[in-house]
């Protein structure tokens, strides 16, 4: 659905996007991740026809964005990383304005606007002015606007930045709903864990270059990040450590305050082995708990080599 080939954008002597090759399948949610200044916004601006690439090209639904700008604009919905200031337009007027700009017939506009307001849960705000909305609501309004012409592709630039956890969850739920509706979504963020739950694929960009692309699950082994579990035993901690350290699958055993942190070797199957071993050694196991996959750590590790 979205494809870039050797996409490059140069500003003066700064290469903001450097030979970027992306491929996003139809119906996917693609997380576009990178630290500030990595070139996410620039890539997205090229995709939504606001900028022209210096080299390479980008296709959306098979249409070249530089040559078929008009057609591309009909099938995409773009939410920029800033919410503009709108001089006293009311929420409903704002949406109707864009409905008109997208060439929706007058007779249908009202019902369409009502529809997106319902989807984004903003009906109660329809006669409030846009600038009186809270940040979370403005973000939802931005999504409502993006949806007004029922685009196939959504390109959302940091939709969750600056939101409180609750508003984040609301946006996330909304995105899941949109995925169910079959839309292809490209969403950027500088926080990897933010997208962990909703994305099918992620691409990690750093200094304009794609350093990783694939599913979230694939990230772990690719990064050489080891799976860790926390083991809590009733007593005999020293003995437990001894036994576990002897196992060939386990690379590291560490005693933390009240639990033992166990790190597996790369690619090893860990199912049940700890529990089995310990129980066989007559040690009472209180709990075995996988440590949270620290995506942000992974992200840092991934980009460490490149940051100068």
């Amino acid at each position: 659905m979205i494809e870039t080939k050797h996409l490059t954008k140069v500003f003066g002597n700064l290469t903001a996007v450097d030979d970027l090759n992306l491929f996003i399948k139809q119906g996917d949610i693609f997380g576009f991740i990178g630290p500030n200044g990595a070139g996410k916004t620039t890539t997205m601006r090229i995709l939504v026809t606001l900028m022209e690439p210096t080299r390479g090209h980008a296709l959306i639904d098979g249409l070249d964005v530089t040559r078929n700008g008009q057609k591309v604009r009909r099938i995409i919905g773009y939410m920029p990383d800033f919410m503009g200031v709108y001089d006293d337009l009311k929420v409903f007027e704002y949406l109707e304005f864009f409905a008109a700009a997208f060439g929706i017939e007058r007779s249908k506009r009202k019902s369409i606007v009502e529809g997106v307001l319902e989807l984004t849960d903003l009906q109660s705000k329809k006669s409030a002015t846009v600038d009186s909305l809270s940040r979370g609501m403005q973000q939802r309004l931005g999504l409502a606007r993006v949806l007004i012409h029922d685009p196939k592709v959504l390109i959302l630039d940091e939709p969750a930045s600056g939101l409180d956890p609750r508003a984040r969850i609301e946006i996330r739920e909304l995105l899941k709903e949109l995925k169910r509706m079959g839309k292809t979504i490209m969403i950027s963020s500088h926080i990897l864990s933010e997208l962990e739950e909703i994305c099918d694929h992620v691409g990690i960009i750093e200094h304009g270059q794609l350093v990783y692309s694939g599913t979230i699950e694939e990230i772990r082994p690719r990064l050489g990040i080891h799976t860790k579990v926390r083991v809590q035993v009733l007593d005999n901690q020293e003995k437990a450590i001894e036994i576990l350290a002897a196992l060939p699958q386990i690379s590291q055993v560490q005693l933390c305050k009240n639990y033992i942190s166990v790190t597996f070797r790369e690619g090893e199957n860990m199912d049940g082995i700890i529990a089995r071993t310990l129980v066989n050694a007559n040690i009472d196991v209180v709990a075995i708990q996988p440590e949270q996959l620290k995506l942000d750590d992974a992200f840092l590790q991934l980009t460490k080599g490149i940051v100068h």
Partner: protein
Amino acid sequence: MSVSKAHFLILFMNSTLIDILEYINPVRLFGPIFAKELIVSSRRRRNYFVRFAYPFFLAFFVASAFTRVFGYRGQYPSVMQVSQLAQVGISITTAIVWFQFIIVQFLAVVMLSTAISDEIYSKTLGVLMTTPISSFQIVFGKLLSKLLQLLLLIAISLPLLAIIRVFGGIPWYFVISSLCITLTASIFAGTISLIFSIYNRQSHLVISRTLLVCFFIYAGPLIAFVIMREFCKDNLHLLIPKLGLFFINPFMLMRTITTAMQLPSASIPGETWLLHCAVMLGLSVIVFIWSVSCVRKAGLRQITGQAGLFLTRKERKIADKKLRQSYSSSPVSGKIRDIKWHPVIWREIANPMIKPNRITSALGILLSLAFLVTAYGLCIYYEVLGRIVTHIVFVLVYFFIALIRTSTFASMSITNEKEARSWPILLTSPLAEKEIALCKIIGSCLRAWGYWLLLAAHLVVFILAGIIKAPVFIPLVLIAISSALLVSSIGVMFSSMCKRSTTSSILNIITFLTCIIPVCCIPFLYFVSPLFAAASIFGVWGGFIEMFDSFNISPNTPLYIIKIIAASHFSFIIYTVIYLLVTYGAYQLSANHIRWRIL
């Protein structure tokens, strides 16, 4: 006196002196804002532009004054006598001094029109309030840094004036007094602009309000005086305030000075202009102190995060209430407007209708009504309503106001959206560039409909009254439409090319002043100006062909042919065609620049 006492006294005096020096220490007085302003302004592209454009226009203006002097006499420098040369020197000096007087005041108003609102808008004023920088330093820093730039501009013309003095006949005295008057008038207008910029974000509103206030301050006493003299003809003591007018009206004083320069025998007493400058400075200080306290309040309000910084107290209350309602998630009442036209046109026109500033707009309407009534009343009083010339003046005034409004609306139409950052969003809609450009042009024209309505009403009433000849109507309407499109398309063109409203509106107003109003008296432009076109069409079709007699143009020159064409009945077709052609060009240019410098 004991030694220790003397010591103590010296010590005391020393420490007081240090205190005083500390107090007037330039860094402390000017503050970091001054430094910041200087650094920032030296980086701004538009300041380079002003520094480049000003001498350019000055040279242009001098050149056109030069050709005018020689053109009228039909003589050339080789056959000029020394006394005539002095005369030339005087007229060119007059031209420069006036150019400077007008432009520097205008630039002061423009430069300071966003001085405080920029800080409020970027939410830095509140931050400044939490630092040890005083609001005095903020206002003073802003004012001084801009004035410094203006001084720089004034300095540019000094060598020119010095060269022209070689021609003889111009005492330094006149040059200095005119410069001082220019400077104090600029300071005064600048401080007024600054105080308005605390309460208004849009620079064109600030500028027009400042000009209006200055007009009332300068002309108000004059008008009152004229009216009073009219009604009590024999009470001579009423003449006394006339001298007082000089102290407050720099324009009158400048006129007196320049006419005095042309009559070598006459001279004006030095006290007059010195006193005038002192009065203007005093007034500026009052406005300055006032704005310091306003800035403080505005900044504190920003910190405490109350709504609607740009509103009056009552409106702020309403806005606060609205805000509370919207936070408490109860539906806010209020009419939702229907989008009846093309959305881009709708947005152009819908904007001004919902200005929350009801009180000021009502005041504006009242003032304009009072103005209209006075104007028509005076015409009736002097029994001049039956004369064609009166109506030409009315038509010109309406044309001028409508055109300048259209022009400013147009010059902001795109830059405003760029500044509000809603422009990129619109550009990701499938609206074509040409469509957007066209809608912006038409929308800006429609925004000034009120003024055109006034003109139409004037025409209809006086046609029905049998004073204006009916055939005038159609050609005049054609000219009105085509010239509105002309200025609108030029404004939109500038707007599409610039990033900031201030830049585009200044570029636009300069173009407007030089081309649309025949200020520069550049012969050809004179004849294509819409204002001239309106007047001449009124003259031709309204039966006032004599108006062309005032142009003493020698036959067999290109200008003479133009004059003949202008005086003919079908000239309006030519004008319309010319305007529409230029409109088309500007429209193409703007359509090509719609996606230019958008981010």
